[in-house]
């Protein structure tokens, strides 16, 4: 697909493929649907972009030095990215995550030498955020806290990367862009870049339809700590997508397109298809955040098996 030679894995981020969804788009004749495969990043997810940008920007202005520990709250993908780049660039990483994160997920980050601190599973990701804030407040000199929810380098990664790449890949053809809201970095940064295009591109933010949902990685803003980087006035539309619709679309992408993606990607494509049916013509680009294998759950007989 790509033939590149590089000095470090850190350079392998971005330039991800854009794939047409020929089977899904048959549901909306007249519309082309494309998916940007962020899982082709070295850490396996879209979060490689903001993690790399937050680290590089902090190294450049002196916020991140070798004597500090990088600490953040993450449900997984950002943690994998920090861990990978930390190992490659020589920085120590500590992650706070709810204790009900799958064992496989913990193992991925620990493989890079990262330390995990557990927070209350009942409090979800907001509980992990509160715990990081407490730890950093106790020992501010010990840690560098990138805080992906408030760090402008997060959307900047998408402004510089994702948005520019999409315009290069589809050119003037694109009419709509669809991305889910979690930290909102993908949506904010990419939308800002697309807004600089000569013609208006509609930008649609997908969010879980309900407070209690199963679209891991996405945030129901009304019931969550709202990220500082989130500007609700930036998207043209905020589209609620139900958990079941997102899960079903993930299954369909695997079965019909050969794309085994996580549930947040399923929600993005379900949202994109809804827009496609409504507009009847155009070219819609959605984001594939990560692969589905990151969410494989242990089987019953594996649950208590430890060695």
């Amino acid at each position, binding site marked *: 697909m790509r033939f590149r030679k590089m000095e470090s894995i850190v350079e392998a981020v971005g330039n991800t493929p854009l794939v047409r969804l020929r089977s899904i788009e048959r549901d909306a004749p007249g519309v082309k649907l494309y998916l940007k495969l962020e899982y082709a990043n070295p850490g396996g997810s*879209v*979060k490689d972009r903001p993690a790399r940008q937050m680290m590089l920007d902090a190294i450049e202005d002196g916020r991140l030095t070798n004597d500090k520990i990088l600490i953040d709250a*993450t*449900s*997984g*993908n*950002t943690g994998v990215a920090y861990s990978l780049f930390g190992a490659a660039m020589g920085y120590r990483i500590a992650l706070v*995550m*709810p204790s*009900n*994160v799958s064992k496989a997920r913990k193992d991925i980050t620990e493989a890079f030498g990262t330390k995990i601190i557990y927070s209350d*599973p*009942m*409090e*979800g*990701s*907001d*509980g992990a955020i509160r715990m990081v804030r407490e730890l950093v407040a106790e020992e501010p000199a010990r840690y560098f806290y990138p805080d*992906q*929810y408030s760090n402008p380098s997060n959307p900047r990664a998408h402004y510089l990367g994702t948005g520019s790449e999409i315009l290069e890949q589809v050119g003037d053809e694109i009419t709509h862009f669809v*991305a*889910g*809201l*979690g*930290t*909102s*970095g*993908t*949506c904010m940064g990419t939308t800002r870049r697309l807004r600089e295009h000569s013609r208006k591109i509609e930008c649609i933010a997908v969010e*879980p339809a*309900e*407070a*209690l*949902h*199963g*679209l*891991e*990685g*996405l*945030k*129901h803003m009304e*019931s*969550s700590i709202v*990220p500082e980087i989130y500007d609700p006035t930036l998207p043209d539309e905020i589209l609620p997508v139900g*958990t*079941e619709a997102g*899960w079903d679309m993930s299954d369909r992408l695997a079965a019909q397109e050969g794309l085994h993606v996580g549930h*947040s990607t399923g929600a993005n494509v379900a949202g994109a298809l809804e827009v496609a049916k409504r507009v009847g013509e155009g070219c819609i680009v959605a*984001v594939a*955040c990560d692969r589905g294998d990151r969410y494989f759950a242990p089987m*019953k007989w594996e*649950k208590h098996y430890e060695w």
Partner: protein
Amino acid sequence: MAVTVRIPTPLRTLTGGADEVPADGGTVAEVIESLEASHPGMKDRLCDEKGVRRFVNLYANDEDIRFLDNLDTALKDGDTLSIVPAIAGGI
């Protein structure tokens, strides 16, 4: 049977902010009915016509009810039923 139900943050709007509420029932299904009576709207958040919604995790004490008898899982006095949310991080 008097059991304690642990409520995750996203559902505390239905319990007036309480993180734990009492409920009655000898099975998970009965406890959900009891919850619905005291906190209307709860059942739809947890179940659809086929049973517990696919993304909702219910734990009888420390065990996922999918690995027990699902909605028929028996509960006794003093047991805890936990509603555990999916982990909502950030894209």
